[in-house]
């Protein structure tokens, strides 16, 4: 008897995959950061295309300068929670900036994006309330549901008709909180928020929370995210997000116009029982939000990079998400191929994320790229070239594929993810088959 016995199957699977010599995904160490897009890994200069660092603000002289000043003025940490000794003028300034950024009355800053979701979802919906979550929501949203006492219903990914059917089953007389994301992290697909808020408006006592973790700074005229992109910001009740992607540091937030919003500071446990963000982090986040708001050219460059990578990979015959987005995920048929592909990439000086079930929708195996506005065209073309070379070596692409992105047909085996989704309906049993 050992507490760790229950992990034996996982330990066996891990060792079978990892103990074959060479780098492993969970063991990557960035020995030195050369820039936002290049690091030294295992002594090799490596292009980073899996960092969520969408706008490249981690090394911007303005964010670094603000962090240095914050560190000098406020010290290395607050050593306390927000409701005790952990609120400095910088935390207040960041919350003021967020409210101005979104044009909302209320704003709250959390120590991580994960805790922002845990806080909001576990606290907003109580024992008599209902939460309706998109099937493909992030683990932090599922965990928020587990932490709270509400009844949780799951609806089909990005499907407003399915959501409305499930909302109506619950009836008008109970409180219902819809939870969706702006951009989904695995395939980079965007939620149809215009349709979701329309559904919300048709069913009484329904609220909607949008997690803009991957869409902040990426979508919308001033970078607010998907809600701004669809022009429905005023119809979204709660926007949650993180500073750990486009903002380039760490932390989470929620903004809202609800008149009683501020009471959450006294009831949201993941907000109350943790130390607040250090002053340097708070200072760089505040400056980064200002940059995001006022520099649409960064978004333009990010999307241009995303389109170039998407076109290059889809043209070569890889199976990708339905449309170009700053997350470009390449689907491969099995764990073994995914791991071999990932290892060849890292040994060729390209870092991407290896994503496997249960983190992935449809239990797919993905090589997930995330673009950065700071990527050069030359870097993108290098990435495409290496992907094609390895794709051919592993037999995923025919020899006819070339770096010009010439379209090739592979006996219908590689098709768009959207097509695959439609073909499998609601992937009944698909997940089971893939994991086996």
């Amino acid at each position, binding site marked *: 008897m050992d507490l760790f016995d229950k992990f034996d199957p996982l330990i066996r699977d891990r060792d079978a995959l990892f103990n074959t010599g060479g780098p492993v995904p969970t063991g990557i160490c960035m020995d030195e950061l050369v820039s936002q897009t290049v690091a030294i890994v295992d002594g090799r200069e490596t292009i980073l295309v899996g960092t969520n660092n969408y706008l490249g603000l981690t090394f911007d002289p303005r964010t670094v300068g603000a962090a240095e000043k914050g560190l000098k003025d406020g010290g290395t940490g607050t050593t306390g929670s927000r409701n005790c000794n952990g609120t400095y003028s910088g935390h207040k300034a960041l919350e003021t900036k967020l409210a101005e950024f979104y044009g909302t009355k209320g704003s709250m800053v959390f120590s991580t994006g994960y805790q922002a979701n845990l806080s909001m979802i576990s606290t907003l919906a109580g024992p008599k309330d209902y939460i309706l979550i998109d099937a493909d929501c992030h683990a932090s949203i599922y965990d928020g549901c587990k932490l709270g006492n509400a*009844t949780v*219903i*799951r609806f*089909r990914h990005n499907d407003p008709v399915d959501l409305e059917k*499930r909302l109506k089953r619950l009836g008008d007389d109970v409180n219902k909180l819809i939870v969706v994301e702006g951009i989904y992290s695995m395939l980079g697909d965007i939620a149809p928020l215009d349709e979701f808020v329309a559904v919300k408006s048709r069913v009484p006592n329904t609220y909607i929370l949008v997690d803009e973790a991957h869409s902040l700074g990426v979508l919308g005229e001033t970078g607010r995210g998907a809600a701004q992109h669809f022009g429905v910001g005023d119809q979204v009740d709660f926007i949650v997000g993180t500073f750990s992607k486009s903002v380039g540091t760490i932390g989470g937030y929620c903004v809202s116009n609800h008149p009683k919003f501020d009471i959450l500071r006294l009831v949201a446990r993941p907000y109350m029982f943790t130390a607040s963000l250090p002053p340097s982090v708070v200072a760089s986040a505040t400056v980064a939000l200002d940059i995001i708001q006022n520099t649409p050219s960064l978004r333009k460059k990010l999307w241009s990079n995303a389109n170039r990578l998407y076109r290059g990979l889809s043209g070569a015959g890889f199976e990708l998400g339905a449309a170009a987005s700053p997350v470009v995920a390449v689907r491969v048929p099995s764990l073994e191929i995914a791991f071999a592909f990932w290892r060849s990439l890292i040994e060729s000086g390209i870092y991407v994320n290896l994503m496997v079930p*249960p983190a992935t929708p449809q239990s797919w195996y993905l090589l997930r790229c995330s673009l950065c506005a700071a990527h050069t065209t030359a870097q993108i073309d290098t990435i495409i070239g290496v992907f094609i070379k390895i794709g051919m070596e592993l037999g995923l692409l025919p020899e006819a594929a070339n770096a010009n992105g010439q379209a090739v047909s592979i006996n219908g085996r590689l098709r768009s993810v959207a097509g695959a989704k439609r073909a499998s309906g609601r992937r*009944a049993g*698909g*997940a*089971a088959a893939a994991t086996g």
Partner: protein
Amino acid sequence: MLTPFNKEGIALTRETNIATDLELDSLAVMDLLAAIEDEFDISVPLNILPDLETIGQMADAVESIVQGKN
């Protein structure tokens, strides 16, 4: 209803374990619940998942939700 989820075509009884016999992972079980919701026009909360180990337990849970509705 379970046929599409029974990839190995095993014999199904009330005692069939959803995870170890049917080999459904957590995502597949949630998909099965969604199919059940639509078949019976009921709401099946994810909250009941930890209590469902066998097909029999799942059937009883659905039965009690359907009874509660009528």
